[in-house]
């Protein structure tokens, strides 16, 4: 989230699209309802009428996976009707920048596509620069190649008829949403976007979110109170686990993963550090080298020295285009290439797509270590449906972990608040925390490599994991938290201040490139004070702005900033665009309000900096070379869908997605055998694959068994009765579920034809309770977003039959 949960109360219009917030983030509605009580309006765009829709002023049904068409139409509407917030767009975005002459878009493809590698050469996706290297700009927005005009040209095709034909949203609903939401494109109105997996779980997920960013930038809704692009993250600490990079493609603090073409730390840092020639751009990522060296120092301690590149060579390097995401991992596992697998607090056999493939992949493993608080379908995969345990040769471990109420440590909310948890009771039985388990294992391996040697032992032997408590029995979260914050690695003087070795670094502004500081994650630097105060554990309820920022409650990264890009909430002179919600104000030579995005004066003053400090140009990008599938979001159909032909171009699916080709990856697009669109989700009463909640009687009582939501129209057409068991089939598998016949699901008209949509949760599994049914992921497709690899859970094709 750019903003935070409590801030939702300040919205004039809340657009929930690709999220069922009332069901999956129920307490967010405490703040959404507050906004509505103040006269705010709620729009819900979703394939189903849910508990969220029940509270909406406008509910617009949409076929799963077609959000770019929906939002593209709104972008067109806003530009055409000049509903954008001009001052913001001109000064804080690249709307007036000039797109290079060689850029083009034709037949659904941007310039530079190579069908053989299924990748784009992005060299034509550039902006023209002057002789000083500063982007050229036409603030009159008259230049035909200025970003705003090129963007309008791109979305001109997204007219109401076409959008309605793709999305199935009636035209009057589209217009109603466009009109209401674009009413926030003025300086004293705020619109917020709440999105979740409904956007990301798609082959075009990243671009869907980019389209929401474009929308919010046009309306001047980013950086302000009650605005923002707010990802409602689905797991308790997924913000923390993402910040700390349990992901192959980057290192903690969003530093890129080392790849084989960067052989030295200098090459790596040079490539990872963006440059700018514009003195008005803060270009915060220009500090990358300090963060890289501090991370390496944090991991390798004294062994990390300038002369060995701070241990950079010990880190694993992926090949240049190598993809090690979860789908590639499971595909390689299915092919027998992966021998040993560590699975912590997760249930891939229920939560990953095409469960039959995932379950088959597990049987190819030589060994699996599973760490969890309850057993699940993955830990016990070897006794799953259709398997003879005798034939499964995998050696398995199921390690009992402590739950959150049994641990100290921090957890980051979606709003980036790092909150400290306190251990309530001793570890039950033999339970250990995950932190203790990985630390103890590392100690064992270090001893073994020290004694016997082995392949490249340096990374192991030098890895500083001195994290056990004094008695050696548990994980010392406090010590690790200090390490993550960062410490001075030697006595150091910066300016007129001296710091002792071992003292915490007060903030990331003080991190050094020479190895005198360490920081496990620069973003968290400042969460521990130099005198050892744990700011994550704060419970101060002061609210000096009256806006509910609660600066003394926990710690928000970065630097306790509660709303990021907050310098975009003020005009050129530092006065809030909306004086009624003054997030930030330049007064008497300093910023008052939230922790400002940097200390520099506002734009209009000498030394002023542009507000988008993480972007090399200092402004937000409508046109940008970031994603691999285009500088603008473009609609493509889900890999498996009801249409033979994309109604917007000849390019049917995303051109850059990996198409997996194993014998278990069958796809049935526009196949009369599978005429129903399936969308999948979770219910309030269970959580994800149900790995934790299905062991709880109160929750099972409320949502006991697998169900499929179908429209009254489809039920009538096929003769299904509410409450009867049916069988659902896709090209990949089948399962039974109880039919829930409801007016909340409705047929869509797509390309002039009726298309039925059905919906299921992935909350169930064969292991427990015995009669609850299995996961809907037996049906879903094994394909991911072209940029992020997030599986396309939200759309595939199925059919239903009465249970035999």
């Amino acid at each position, binding site marked *: 989230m750019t903003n935070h949960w409590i801030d939702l109360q300040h919205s004039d219009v809340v657009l929930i699209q690709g999220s069922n917030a*009332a069901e999956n983030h129920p307490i967010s*509605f405490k703040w959404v*309802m507050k906004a509505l009580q103040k006269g705010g309006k709620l729009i819900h765009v979703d394939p189903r009428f849910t508990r969220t829709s029940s509270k909406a002023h406008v509910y617009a049904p949409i076929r799963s996976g077609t959000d770019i068409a929906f939002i593209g139409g709104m972008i067109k509407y806003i530009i055409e009707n000049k509903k954008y917030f001009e001052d913001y767009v001109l000064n804080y975005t690249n709307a007036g920048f000039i797109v290079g002459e060689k850029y083009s878009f034709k037949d659904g493809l941007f310039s530079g596509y190579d069908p053989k590698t299924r990748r784009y050469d992005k060299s034509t996706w550039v902006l023209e620069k002057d002789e000083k290297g500063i982007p050229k700009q036409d603030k009159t927005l008259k230049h035909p190649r200025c970003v705003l005009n090129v963007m309008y040209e791109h979305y001109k095709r997204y007219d109401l008829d076409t959008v309605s034909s793709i999305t199935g949203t009636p035209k009057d609903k589209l217009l109603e949403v466009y009109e209401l939401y674009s009413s926030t494109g003025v300086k004293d109105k705020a619109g917020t976007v709440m999105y979740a997996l409904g956007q990301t779980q798609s082959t075009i997920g990243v671009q869907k979110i980019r389209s929401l960013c474009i929308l919010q930038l046009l309306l001047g809704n980013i950086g302000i109170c009650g605005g923002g692009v707010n990802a409602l993250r689905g797991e308790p600490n997924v913000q923390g686990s993402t910040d700390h990079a349990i992901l192959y493609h980057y290192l903690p603090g969003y530093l890129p993963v080392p790849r084989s073409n960067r052989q030295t730390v200098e090459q790596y840092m040079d490539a990872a550090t963006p440059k700018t020639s514009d003195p008005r751009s803060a270009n915060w990522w220009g500090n990358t080298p300090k963060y890289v060296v501090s991370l390496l120092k944090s991991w390798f301690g004294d062994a990390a020295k300038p002369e060995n590149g701070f241990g950079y060579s010990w880190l694993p390097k992926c090949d240049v285009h190598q993809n090690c995401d979860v789908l590639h991992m499971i595909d390689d596992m299915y092919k027998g290439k992966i021998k040993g697998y560590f699975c912590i607090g997760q249930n891939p056999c229920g939560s990953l797509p095409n469960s039959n493939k995932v379950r088959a992949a597990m049987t190819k493993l030589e060994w699996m270590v599973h760490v969890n608080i309850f057993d699940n379908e993955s830990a016990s995969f070897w006794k799953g449906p259709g398997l003879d345990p005798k034939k499964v040769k995998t050696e398995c471990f199921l390690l009992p972990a402590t739950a959150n109420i049994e641990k100290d440590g921090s957890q980051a909310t979606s709003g980036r608040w790092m909150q400290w948890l306190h251990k309530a009771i001793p570890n039950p039985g033999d339970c250990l925390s995950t932190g203790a388990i990985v630390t103890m294992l590392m100690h064992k391996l270090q001893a073994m490599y020290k004694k016997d040697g082995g392949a490249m032992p340096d990374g192991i032997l030098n890895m500083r994991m001195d994290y056990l408590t004094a008695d050696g029995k548990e994980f010392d979260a406090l010590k690790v938290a200090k390490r993550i914050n960062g410490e001075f690695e030697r006595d150091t003087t910066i300016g007129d201040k001296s710091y002792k070795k071992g003292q915490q670094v007060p903030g990331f502004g003080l991190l050094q490139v020479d190895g005198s500081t360490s920081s496990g994650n620069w973003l968290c630097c400042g969460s521990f004070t130099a005198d050892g105060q744990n700011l994550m554990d704060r419970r101060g309820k002061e609210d000096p702005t009256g806006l509910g920022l609660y600066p003394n409650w926990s710690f928000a990264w970065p630097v306790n900033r509660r709303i990021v890009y907050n310098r975009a909430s003020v005009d050129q002179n530092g006065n809030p665009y909306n004086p009624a919600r003054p997030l930030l104000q330049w007064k008497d030579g300093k910023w008052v309000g939230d922790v400002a995005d940097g200390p520099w004066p506002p734009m209009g003053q000498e030394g002023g900096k542009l507000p988008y400090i993480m972007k090399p140009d200092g402004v937000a990008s409508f046109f940008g070379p970031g994603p691999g599938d285009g500088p603008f979001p473009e609609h493509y159909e889900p890999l498996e869908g009801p249409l033979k032909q994309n109604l917007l171009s000849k390019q049917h699916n995303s051109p850059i997605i990996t198409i997996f080709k194993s014998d278990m990856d069958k796809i049935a697009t526009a196949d009369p055998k599978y005429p129903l669109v399936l969308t999948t989700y979770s219910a309030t009463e269970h959580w994800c694959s149900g790995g934790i909640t299905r062991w709880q009687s109160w929750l*099972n009582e409320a*949502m006991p068994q697998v169900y499929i939501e179908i429209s009254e129209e489809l039920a009538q057409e096929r003769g299904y009765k509410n409450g009867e068991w049916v069988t659902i089939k896709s090209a990949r598998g089948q399962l039974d579920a109880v*039919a*829930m016949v409801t007016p909340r699901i409705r047929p869509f008209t797509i390309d002039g034809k009726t298309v039925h949509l059905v919906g299921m949760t992935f909350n169930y599994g064969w292991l427990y309770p015995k009669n609850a049914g299995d996961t809907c992921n037996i049906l879903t497709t094994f394909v991911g977003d072209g940029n992020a690899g997030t599986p396309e859970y939200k759309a595939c094709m199925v059919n239903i039959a009465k249970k035999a």
Partner: protein
Amino acid sequence: MSDGKSILVDTSRCTGCRGCQVACKQWNGLAAEQTTQRGTYQNPPDFSHQTYKLVRFAEGKREGSREPYWYFFSDMCRHCVNPPCMVASENNEIVQDEETGAVIYTEATKNIDFEMARGSCPYNVPRQNPETKVVSKCTMCFDRIKSGMKPACVLACPTALDFGEREDILKLAEERVAELKKVYPKAKAIDAEDVRVIFIVTDDPKKYHEFAEA
């Protein structure tokens, strides 16, 4: 003398998250029932001696339209000002707490005429344990109230439930209804003068639940 306590259940604000339903089980240590999926989100199907708080889910289509509605009715004992169920109480098996106004079923209800208790309740609330014969229902969490805490369901509710002095809650209900009436002409506070747990609805009470209104 104080007018006791009241709870406001504003269904126009309820999101059906069922925090109240589970919080009630948690605080009161009530066991779960063995349920099945019957084609609805509502489960357990009804009150029981193990279920004092139940979110009822009601859905349909708006009049003359394909637009659906989905109503959530966080049902519980209304703690009537003058509880009709006390007709079944001959020897203080059912008592009314003076301080809060909570209507409390004691263990001695195993001796009462259950059908009379249930039949006299306009909201069809009391339920009997088939084994012990004890009759039970929501206690208004009078134990929590006396310790200075909110009832468990009210504490858990993110949006719809309020708790306080009866006169304050009545005033709040009146304000809310006035506001809602601007958009929903049928908005009202059900049986507000007779009950301590006051439900605000925006449509015909029958659409929420058969026994929503007396």
